[in-house]
């Protein structure tokens, strides 16, 4: 489902963020990308939705080599991926409900079905009661749950999260990971980048450990 083959990512200036990384994640698998700050976790995750392109090697997602995809094909790749970021990337001039509706606006669903999907996604993350609130009124953990609701509303086959618990207390972080685990149980492939070893220890899942741009275990 996700396959990295000898992937190198070199930024302008010559800095190598990834040095020949190879691994694959099967459909329905849950894996952590672990490592210290600067190890290359974010770069690795950005290669999957083609936010960054590999300098060498191949990144294959759902059978597509994303490194060679045309710009016009990227939206369709990204609609099959649920993306969650450390800074949530929410729209603070919209309500909670409108944030979740955003990915459905350019989809094929009719208005009624889209609204039903959005509310179902909010219910899954426990935010249905706050649908009319502005994201700014939510706590850090709630904002992250809102970001997850937006990421899953299109029912993606892969969920990718980059340090989703970095700004949260231990309890909220565990709650977020429980939500990811719940989606994984219904067949969604989950890839979570984190430097929180304690959190990784609480879940018996596969760990891909990065150090200095290379995979070490």
């Amino acid at each position, binding site marked *: 489902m996700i396959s990295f083959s000898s992937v190198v990512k070199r930024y302008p200036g010559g800095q190598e963020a990834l040095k020949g990384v190879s691994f694959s994640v099967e459909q329905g698998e849950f894996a952590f990308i672990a490592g210290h700050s600067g190890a290359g976790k974010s770069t690795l995750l950005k290669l999957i939705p083609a936010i960054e392109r590999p300098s060498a090697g191949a990144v294959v997602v759902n059978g597509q080599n994303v490194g060679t995809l045309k710009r*016009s094909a990227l939206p369709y790749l990204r609609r099959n991926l649920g993306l969650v970021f450390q800074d949530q*990337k929410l729209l603070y001039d919209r309500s909670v409900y409108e944030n979740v509706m*955003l990915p459905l606006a350019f989809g*094929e669903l009719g208005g009624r079905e889209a609204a039903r999907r959005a509310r179902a996604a909010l219910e899954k993350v426990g935010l249905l009661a706050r649908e009319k609130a502005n994201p700014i009124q939510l706590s850090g953990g709630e904002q992250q749950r809102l970001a997850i609701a937006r990421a899953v509303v299109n029912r993606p086959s892969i969920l990718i999260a980059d340090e989703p618990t970095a700004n949260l207390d231990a309890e909220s972080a565990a709650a977020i990971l429980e939500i990811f685990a719940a989606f994984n149980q219904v067949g969604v492939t989950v890839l979570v980048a984190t430097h929180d070893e304690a959190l990784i220890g609480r879940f018996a899942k596969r760990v891909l450990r990065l150090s200095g741009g290379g995979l070490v275990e």
Partner: protein
Amino acid sequence: MKPWLRQHRQAIAAAFGKLAAQRSAAVLNALVIGIALSLPAGGYALLSSLRSVLQGALLEPQISVFLRAEAKRADADALGARLKNDARVRDARFVSREQALKELQAAEGLGEVVASLSRNPLPDAFVVRPKSADAGDLEALARELRANPAVAHVQVDSAWARRLGALAGTARLAIALLAALLAFGLVAITFNTIRLQILTQRAEIEISKLIGATDAFIRRPFFYLGALQGLAGGLVALGILWASLAALNLGVAELAASYGSSFRLAFLEPGDALAVALFSGCLGWLGAYLSVSKYLLEIEPK
């Protein structure tokens, strides 16, 4: 509803929403565009009003043939018969000196002057309508008539209309150039407005791209916004033009009445008015297209 139709509806609603959210800026932009467009539109309306007057004069050239004061009625009859048989003449109307004096007396403000005259100073005359409007043909006919010993003066009445026609042609060209320049200005205004909108919505665009929005989906509301802004400017221009013509017509009516005319400056024909509004909308769309093409590509998720 089909997805593409729903997306267009959403984009239009979003464009209206943006206009409403920035009401003051939108009104100012529409005013700037409207004032700029009202200049060429006003020039066009003015020329259209004059065109009907000019066309009548240009299409029906006349030659006025004034006989000598000492010419006898027999000379007039002979010239009349010659004109009637001339293949180049459509018709020739004889205006006797008595009839001419009556017409002069009937003219406003001249009755008393005419009454004070001791004798009729006006000559007998013919008003000749030639078949050809060609300047060369007219001049040849006038030359022949001048050679007649009973004729004192020949005036080709179409000459002034031709000069006016040439002047109108130059004015039309000037208006077209002005319209082109101002259209460029309109595109520039919309370009800048949309650029600012794109910068304001940078975060939203980035997020939309991240979660799978196509470029077309992101571009669409900006296109509608540009077109709406242009359209609003076009409507303002028509409003300014209508009000200006109404005000000008107060003076024009008085002036025309003194010449015995009911001439008025006419507002644009419905088709022309629609064309102004649509053209303005298209220019707004073009400004938005250029702006979006330049700036949207620069925004990529990080």
